[in-house]
């Protein structure tokens, strides 16, 4: 298992185009990937679950379980913190 904390970068928070990029990144790995905020945990490969999950500036933990967990966490966290809408 791997995990990392990161800060939401896009102005719009996690929805719209940023959500689509996070989803694409998550789907490119075989690991199970979760986003955690407080006591909420959602499947990072679900557009329904990640849309509106966090606003800009909020802290989110990316957690992954599987063969490519390390890399999955790095890649997904990078998309979440990207300062791009």
């Amino acid at each position, binding site marked *: 298992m791997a995990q990392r904390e990161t800060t939401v970068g896009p*102005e*719009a928070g996690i929805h719209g185009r940023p959500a689509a990029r996070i989803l694409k990144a998550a789907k490119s790995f075989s690991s199970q990937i979760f986003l955690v905020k407080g006591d909420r945990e959602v499947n990072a490969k679900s557009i329904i679950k990640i*849309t*509106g999950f966090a606003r800009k*500036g909020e802290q989110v933990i990316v957690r992954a379980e599987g063969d490519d967990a390390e890399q999955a966490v790095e890649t997904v966290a990078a998309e979440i913190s990207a300062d791009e809408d």
Partner: protein
Amino acid sequence: MKLSGVGASEGVAVGPAFVPRTGGSEPERTGIGEGEVEAELGRFGDAVRVVAARISETAEGLRESGNEDEAGIFDFHAEMAEDPELASAVEERVKNLQSPEAAVLAAGEEYAAEFEAIEDEYLSSRADDVRDVARQISAELMGQADSGFEALYEPSVVLAKSLAPSDTARIPKGLALAFVTAEGSRTSHVSIMARSMGIPAVVGVGDALSGALEAETVAVDGTEGSAITDPDPETVARFDKLSQALAEERVALDQYRHAEARTADGLRIEVAANLGSASEAEEALEWGAEGVGLFRTEFLFMERDDLPTEEEQYDAYSTVARAFGHKPVIIRTLDVGGDKNLPGVDQIHEDNPFLGWRGIRMSLDTPDLFKPQLRALLRAAAHGNVKVMFPMVVEAGELLAAKEMLAEARRELEEQGADVGEIETGVMIETPAAAVCAAELAAEAAFFSIGTNDLVQYTLAADRGNERLRRLQGADHPAVLALIRQTCSAAQEANIPVGVCGEAAGDPQLIPNLLDLGVTELSMAAPSIPKAKKVVSEWKRT
């Protein structure tokens, strides 16, 4: 019968009414037998693939025709159709012997309710996306892949409770003359679609729509936000004329849109846009804006429980500054009064918020509110041609105090090694006092911007929301024009420019008056820009 709603896409149209047959009829079969679970799960998987492929195909088609934004909506729907969480929710229900067509509707409804519970207009609109996708999968499972638009064969006005992207996308090209919906707002998909299709739309007419469904003909005015069912011949004639005039005008104005605004005798006049949020910048540029004459910052402070951080403000201001490059962007500091609650600011009830503690009065008394905004502005100024102006000023002392605070913010930022830019400071002339003291203000300001809406209401002592005071709401009242004249001559003495950013600036009847008085910048709602440039090009100094 007249329906009133929100004008979501401008223009007018008259045509036969068309009501799409509401798709997604309730599944007749809600339960299945124990032996059927595997086979039904297989059917669900197939339906998901068919629906996702169909949606992706629509996205591809839109992308090829250059409609990238609309294509994005369909990409989002395709992802939703294939969502693993939706699939496992359906799987669980099917294992409990619910039919997949009923299960997907129920699961979709659960997610839709979650989105609706979030207090955010954008996210609550996503509830309809989930419902739309679930309905498509359910219809596919029931073998009803039709769209409800099969009977549409002549150009018509489409009336519906709401219109999902999958609906609007399946309307054969050219057959929708206009949309009228009971639900929706300016940011709903149907509104975005209508604007990109260039057809009028009136949304949010409410229950009144049910009374209009039997109409033969409908006349739609998307500019005013109204629709008339079974209009009489005079109304039809009026709409036809309006429609023709609008079409001709649109073509005729296109040549002005991106041209530099100059008067007939060569005087340069800047025609700029008023922005209510950072997201309006691109659209303003497309309308031909030569700058931003008024960027209201209130949007950052509304509909939230905390105050926006310096960082958030910096992001919004610098986004617009970057979008406009070397073109000027005039940002107005916060202008709210006792009628809007601000977290962390000690407000008291005021009987008369427009004459109360608002604008620069509140800012100067609340450094915790004002300082972060000034810091964000100074930092944003490093990325473009940013100017700041202060609202509700009535005397030069207020301007001096605000400039002092700005200088202090600059010193702090420079000590911290932050990247800051040059910034001109101007004054909104929106109180009679400011116009009367224009000479003193001009000595300290780099520019003036006349806010005619408030100047009219304060000068004539006439609430601009009061319908009975219509005759006292025009900027062409002699007292208002006298104050504008006084402002312009004080500015000319001091050699500083004067702009106008109220509704008068975009009014073709008033523009020549304003130019006569010496105004050199006009800032307005973006769609008024091409027409304003044309009016400017026809004027010359007497």
